């Protein structure tokens, strides 16, 4: 899922400082599961903003609402009237949701309430870790199901580098070295010979480097 983190209140307060009536719009999917911008978090943020603005003698017309997804028109469209009734929206969805809202409500200021951080998973309660960078050409079949693009600090195709020590990455002694993980997993799979093959220079054109990515599926078109 998409993992995000609430922005500091100070930053959000600043964004909406000149607006009277503000909607904090939560998103019920990824950001709810990672406790950054779901219904509860939207309520908390609204409450925080009301108190902070109360203390500054500013309007406390901050309401909150949450929709299931801000990355699909069918969930965004039904709240047209609600959005029309406010001066600005703080979306606690990921960057995709914020942009979905901005595209749908062209004349309404839409502000990000979270920092969209990575694609990952909760490896244990309260600990979220990156897993994929959406490189557009998945090589997990070659690397024992461990992604070197996202999980190696240098995105090496032929690791581990000389900094790998006791299973940890040189960049952060708390982070496992992705290539040690790949090595261990390939060993368990009986596929260590994969480590002996040179992986060619990666084609990054399928990644963000190639420009905006788009997928067209004729079968799904209306």
């Amino acid at each position, binding site marked *: 899922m998409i993992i995000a983190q609430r922005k500091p209140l100070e930053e959000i307060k600043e964004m909406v400082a000149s607006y009277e009536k503000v909607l904090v719009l939560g998103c019920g999917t990824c950001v709810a599961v990672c406790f950054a911008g779901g219904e509860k978090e939207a309520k908390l943020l609204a409450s*925080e903003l009301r108190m902070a603005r109360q203390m500054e*003698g500013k309007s406390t017309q901050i309401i909150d609402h949450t929709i299931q997804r801000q990355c699909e028109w069918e969930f965004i469209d039904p709240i047209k009237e609600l959005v029309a009734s406010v001066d600005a929206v703080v979306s606690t969805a990921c960057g995709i949701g914020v942009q979905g809202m901005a595209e749908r409500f062209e004349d309404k200021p839409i502000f990000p309430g979270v920092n969209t951080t990575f694609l990952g998973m909760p490896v244990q309660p309260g600990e979220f870790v990156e897993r994929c960078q959406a490189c557009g050409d998945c090589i997990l079949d070659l690397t024992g199901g461990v992604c070197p693009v996202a999980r190696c600090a240098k995105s090496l195709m032929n690791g581990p580098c000389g900094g790998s020590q006791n299973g940890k990455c040189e960049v952060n002694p708390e982070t496992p070295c992705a290539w040690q993980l790949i090595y261990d997993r390939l060993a368990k799979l009986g596929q260590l010979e994969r480590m002996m093959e040179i992986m060619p220079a990666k084609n990054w054109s399928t990644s963000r480097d190639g420009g905006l990515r788009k997928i067209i599926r004729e079968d799904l078109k209306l």
Partner: protein
Amino acid sequence: MSETPFEPEITAFVCQYCGDMAADSAGWNRISYPANVKIVRLPCTGKVDVHHILNAFEHGADGVYVVACPEGNCHHINGNLSAKRRVTYAKSLLDEVGVGGNRLEMFHVTAAQGDEFARIAAEMTERIRALGPSPVRRAMGKSSG
């Protein structure tokens, strides 16, 4: 104009198995505690949500505290521990807002500790009295007056 002394409004979220019973035993033993404390009784402090805490402050509480069973002694296994983590988180939010995390506290008592319950109520009342009215309440007063 004479200043009326500040009487803090305090909300206590208490667990029915320990905090609430401790309040009762304080009563039986005729131990008095300050009247400033409004008690919200919960089946378990694990039910205390950060949102409830912020809500209390938003509606004018000067202080809030949570009274849970001692660690390792929760009737719902670890409700008190979740409460503790949420209180810590709520403190950080209150600091961020500018209300001040020190207006919120977490305590542990057993059902029998009526005296301890009273002591906590007195301690919190004193702490909040010293801090003065919550900035939110002060602002509310201003905007209404």
